[in-house]
């Protein structure tokens, strides 16, 4: 089983440094192989790249435009520059455009890049119009996760996770066009009437809390969400026999969120509804039951 295929290598140059990577590697992979990095937003390590957010752009010698590193394949002899003023301008602008169009306050990556590239979204404010940036209330149409589309940067990660790459539910897609494009289950259906199976795998890949577990959403509102005080304990899901690893996020002896470790080859970070949301019973009947029960059929509470 350890038979290794001989993959031909290609040589490219990253910021003047020669690097050898397997054929069909992306520029991002080559850049990382060279010990460098570029910022990414729509890129996610377990999803296919789509090159939509354009923050990972780099200069490639001979190319008229900048090139998205996440999706472009390395070619032999390519000379790549990852941090020129031209590149920095694009990255700063992408961050400014995002910050000016949605609420990125809970998007740690965007905030980090904003600081790194010196984004000044306020310089667009004198020109801002009300209409196209109208705010929408968070959509709370079920008790497991919330859609706060004002935070959505349209990275398509959720759509990819819901679609053929992972979950194959195809419950959400991009609807509308241009600035009005948004993630929608179709015909503006509430999620429970859609094809959604509430695996929360979209939530797992969302980089901005546009999709967020309801527990987290409510604790944030109440001001009690304190990531710094949370411990993460890895265990195994209590339901079926697949053996998914769960990361239990625990605050004050309570589970506040469940995720799955990306590096686990069984889940790759993806779970089903029971694994991600079906944990509330361990707190049933105790004070501040976070999930509560829908007419529990069993007397709640440990004895």
């Amino acid at each position: 089983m350890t038979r290794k295929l001989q993959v031909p290598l290609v040589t490219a140059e990253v910021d003047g440094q020669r690097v050898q990577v397997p054929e069909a590697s992306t520029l991002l992979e080559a850049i990382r192989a060279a010990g460098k990095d570029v910022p990414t937003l729509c890129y996610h390590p377990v999803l296919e790249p789509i090159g939509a957010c354009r923050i990972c752009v780099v200069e490639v010698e001979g190319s008229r435009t900048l090139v998205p590193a996440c999706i472009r394949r390395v070619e032999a002899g390519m000379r790549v520059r990852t941090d020129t003023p031209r590149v920095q301008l694009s990255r700063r602008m992408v961050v400014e455009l995002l910050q000016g169009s949605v609420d990125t306050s809970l998007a740690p990556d965007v905030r980090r890049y904003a600081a790194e590239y010196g984004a000044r979204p306020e310089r667009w404010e004198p020109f801002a119009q009300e209409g196209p940036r109208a705010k929408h209330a968070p959509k709370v149409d079920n008790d497991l996760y919330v859609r706060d589309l004002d935070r959505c940067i349209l990275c398509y990660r959720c759509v990819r996770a819901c679609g053929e790459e992972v979950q194959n539910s195809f419950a959400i897609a991009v609807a509308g066009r241009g600035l009005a494009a948004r993630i929608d289950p179709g015909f503006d259906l509430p999620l429970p009437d859609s094809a959604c199976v509430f695996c929360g795998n979209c939530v797992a890949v969302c980089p901005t809390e546009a999709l967020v577990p309801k527990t987290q959403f409510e604790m944030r509102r109440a001001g009690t969400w304190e990531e710094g005080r949370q411990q993460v304990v890895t265990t195994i899901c209590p339901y079926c026999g697949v053996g998914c690893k769960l990361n239990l996020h625990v605050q004050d002896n309570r589970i506040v969120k469940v995720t799955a470790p990306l590096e686990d080859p069984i889940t790759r970070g993806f779970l089903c509804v029971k694994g991600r949301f079906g944990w509330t019973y361990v707190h049933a009947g105790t004070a501040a039951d976070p999930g509560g029960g829908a007419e529990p059929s069993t007397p709640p509470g440990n004895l």
Partner: protein
Amino acid sequence: MSAAPLRGWGVELQRLEHVPPPTPEEQQALERVWGHLGPEERVGRRDLLLPALWAVQEARGWISYPAAAAICRELGLPPAEVYGVASFYALLATEPRPRRMIHLCDDIVCMLRGAEALAQTLHRLLGDPIQEPAHGQAYGGISRADGAASGEGPLPSVGWSRSPCLGQCERGVAALVGERVLLGLSPEALEERVRAWLRGGEGLADATPAPTHLGWKGEGTPLLLARCGRIVPTSLEDYRALGGYEGLKRAMTIGPEATIQEVERSGLIGRGGAAFPTGRKWALAAREPPPRYVVCNADESEPGTFKDRVLLEKDPFSVIEGLTIAGYAVGAERGYLYIRGEYPEGYRVLLQALEFARAAGYLGKRILGTDFSFDIEVRRGAGAYVCGEETALFNSIEGFRADPRNRPPFPTQVGLFRRPTAINNVETLACVPPILARGGDWYARLGTERSKGTKLVCVSGHVARPGLYEVPFGVPIRTVVEDLAGGVPGGRRVQAVLCGGAAGTFLLPEELDTPLAVETLQALGAALGSGALVVFDERTDLWTVVERIARFFRDESCGQCVPCRVGTQRQLEVVAELRRGGGRVDPEVRRLLEELAQVMRDASICGLGQLAPNAVLSSLRLLGKRP
């Protein structure tokens, strides 16, 4: 995206079992789309999605949830994706909408002809325009289960919306109403019509529109316009009598490789805007493994551009023959012709011409007795400028949202249905039959060193004879504007000429002596683009024009990448503010626009975003220096 989706795979369609059936009229419309395909054969035919959406849109005036659910069941598609596609297009409605919609063109050229007065008339008669969610209002109340209108009371019978350029610039103001395009509209005529419709009548017979001025000048002309207006467009006899199908015969005599060589020798470059050598494109596609496709891009949507419409309406066989030769050369068995939804007349003419071509053995099995079999399918767009971008066009045909794809890979390797594809513009393909018939060397003698042959130029705006003109490359722009189109009427002076449509650049009056050629315009920092020249006289408020262009791009951005999705909005906001402020551009604002422009050019996925700042930036050359 990984492997091609399986047939109807993974869609848990039982979820749709309890959605009510579509209305009988919706059902009948869908049956016509399915045609002879049995239920098993429909599943997985995602490429039938757009035709199916069109069918129910026309049957009811909007796409109801039950109708969409029926499409999902038949094609095996998830509702979210069907909605994602339906809501992408301006001509498709996912909310109840009046059956008769007036899509009034208020784009740059019709604007010059008084479109705003017509908009006021419609506003007075019909109230606010109905804009699709794609254009602003992101969330509407949408009725679902029952498929009935969600609002209070019955739907009005007539509604209206503002439309981007309808490609009728030489004879506007134009409005698209169902399968008709109303032309040369005046506020009075429009009011009379609308009142008739509101009373339930059909209104007046369409007035005969002003004829499209056609003209030519210089060596080799008329080549593309030789038949236009001189033949019955759908008459194969007429077409053949004037040299039709000689090109295909010659191609079949010399074989596919030699055909490609002939086109390469002609120096023909693409007429859609990108100016890529056509022969090389074919050669690249031909060396990839089959099946291969050829596609004709007839999604002409660049504001100010109407040449493809004229060719399709007046000489459809020339395009059909060109595409057939392309199919022969590339080794394709199937060609697609994608025509924009706003060209109902072109669509009708094409369908008929294709039928005649098939009946005469120019399409179908074993064409002209050879072992080459080839047929052409026509697909209709539904209101999206971005579909003119070739990879977006592929996605549109395939039934996906028309988001452009990242490249590489290029269409010649991974194109339509992920297969090697040669895609060419209408005018490009119309050049092919004469090249084959008369030889590539003959063609290469026309034009300039780097721009071979003749070019169709759409002249509109403030000229005496707006129309379509053919000249060999190298003729000064002034010749086209003044000699052929008659110059600015009323003795007024030219303020600027927008060259290449909304994605183009403003030329100053002193630049009009530039020869019309790819290389000369490039030297000016401009581009020929689609071959549109919109002339603005000295009285025009150019800021209004620039703002309309900025709005056009904001409305037409697919929304996929950040620089274009948000950048077009920011650009519009700044331009609007500048116009309101009387046009003063201080250096800081100028830098802001320039930075944004650079990022949109550098980092957008496709040409739409990359070209969106062109007109704005070039207008600063004219306007920025004013006090």
